[in-house]
């Protein structure tokens, strides 16, 4: 997902930068014509309609939806300064996993990274709460849990790992 997000962002940013560049260059050119304000109205409508489509499209399926407990493997992860404890070290590929995340002290962030150091998903670990997150691993391999919320002097050392193994038939 990240490369697509980066590409779309850079294209839109470049387009808006170009609009500023052209306006600055046009300071020596013609003054805006009488149609300028209807162009603005068009822009407002275009942004509104695009916004409605993007919002509906991206929220129709709730991004934090959880797998029902019957079908999923329940895994408990607890964090503290500065460690992660994962109660399951071997997770089968292809099965939805419900992570139940808690913290013993301050707020942490549980970020799951694949072996290529790409962030797959994350959830905050909040004192006094259990936060839940569903993820289905497709590839066997070693995965890492990195802390995503600044939690003090050894924040960057708050790393642990688990294995995803091929599903038994």
């Amino acid at each position, binding site marked *: 997902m990240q490369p697509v997000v*980066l590409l779309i962002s850079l294209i839109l940013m470049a387009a808006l930068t170009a*609009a500023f560049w052209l*306006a600055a260059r*046009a300071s020596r050119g013609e003054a805006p014509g009488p149609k300028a304000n209807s162009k603005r109205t068009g822009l407002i409508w275009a942004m509104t309609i695009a*916004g409605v489509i993007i919002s509906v499209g991206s929220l129709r399926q709730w991004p934090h939806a959880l797998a029902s407990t019957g079908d999923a493997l329940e895994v408990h992860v607890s964090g503290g300064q500065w460690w992660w404890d994962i109660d399951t070290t071997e997770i089968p590929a292809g099965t939805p996993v419900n992570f139940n995340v808690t913290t013993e002290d301050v707020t942490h962030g549980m970020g799951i990274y694949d072996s290529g150091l790409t962030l797959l998903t994350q959830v905050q670990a909040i004192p006094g709460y259990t936060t839940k997150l569903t993820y289905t691993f497709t590839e066997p391999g070693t995965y890492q849990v990195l802390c995503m919320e600044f939690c003090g002097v050894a924040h960057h050392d708050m790393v642990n790992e688990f294995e995803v193994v091929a599903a038994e038939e």
Partner: protein
Amino acid sequence: MSTASEPAAAGHAATEPSAAPQAGAVKLTMILSGAVFALMMVFGLIMRAAQGQWIELDPALFYQILTAHGAGMVGTAALSGAAILWYFSGRHVVLTAGIYWAFLGLFLLGVVLILGAIFVGGYGGAWTFLFPLPALSGGAWEAGAAAAFMLGYVSIGVGFLLYYLELGRQIHARYGSLARALGWNLILGREDKNPPPPTIVAAAAVTIFNSIGIILGAAVLVASLVHLLVPGFEVDALLAKNLIYFFGHVFINASIYMAVTAVYEILPEYTGRPWKSNRLFAIAWNAVLIFVMAVYWHHLLQDVVMPPWMLVVGQLVSYFSGIPLIAVTAFSTFLYVRGSKMTWDLASSLLVLSVAGWSVGSIPASIDGMISVNKVMHNTMWVPGHFHTYLLLGEVAMAFGFMAWLVRGKTISQMGGLDRAAFATYLAGAAGFVTVFLFSGAASIPRRWAVHYEEWLTHDRIGTLFSVLVVLGTLIFVLRFVARLGRSEG
């Protein structure tokens, strides 16, 4: 009440800047802001170089510098924005000098407390003081250091409340009500012989939302302080986080909304076209007033125990906030600039750049405001990537543009060689610096990590090189300002 400015409610070319009330205090504030911006940028450069393993930095010191950089930059953005707003509000209402000096004094007292807490007390809990981290340092700092840090915030917050109380009071006196100053007559199509100029609309909106933000920030600061001192006094961590991010989001955005008045007031001197309040402008500002307070939930999109509707609002408002910014502020800038035959000196170039940087930076921000994207971008380098875009190329460019305008001399002339070089250096450095952050975010590099993996070092090193350019450009801007100020005063 200054009636002289009444007929010129929209264009103020007649007002001599030297006659601006409290210009001396504002200039002093801009010297301080420029110096602190430069120092905090050097802190940023040090952090990037340490992440790139070009220099060695103890993680404890790294996180202290991180804390100083965050608090220092947010504070200085707000300070410079407040100076700009005070300066230009003074063209429309009469403001009491004593209040500004009290504000500045309390701000500096806060700075002393914060710097002492960090570099004497060892506090390194980040500028966000996320509960209960200040109280649970794992041995890195004592409760006293955390308390001093938070008392520093309280001092700055009290100063800002005084500032807004005075601003709100004088706007009320001049315009009868904050509602009128917010342009409600324009919105409702009622006749208003003396409609509020853009600066006053901005001042009224910021006065309302930033006062609310600071009061809620004060509430969580007091709760955190009591928690430090009274064992057993517990605060709900999620509630505290909501209050902190409400305050933090509103406060940093207020700095841009204050500083943009420099664009409203200065650009017309170049384009010859007054920046006017009209119905659309008033609607946009009233939308901003609501949006800026409703959007903070986009900081909590991965706090899945939050009520889902709040996260939905966070995502929607992240997107729709872009409409007043791009279709109103940016689009109006295009219209004012096109065909204006304006002169591009350092001040006008920086001010147009600032609107561009602010608008362009809102794009990666709203994209990260989508819950599904946020799952893989939250707390990665993507986040400093977008906020450095609209701060470094937005608020800070507004402040530097305002400073260049203050010392522009009697006639406006094209940029000289040094100005061109400084502008190009700053723009290239900042654009490269933020682009590296965005690439790093897309490469899943977490933010706020003192020690980086081998795989990430190339990003950090390229970022370090760009940040050297930013520091160089900034040093020229600030030194040029101080030198010209000395010449014009002497």
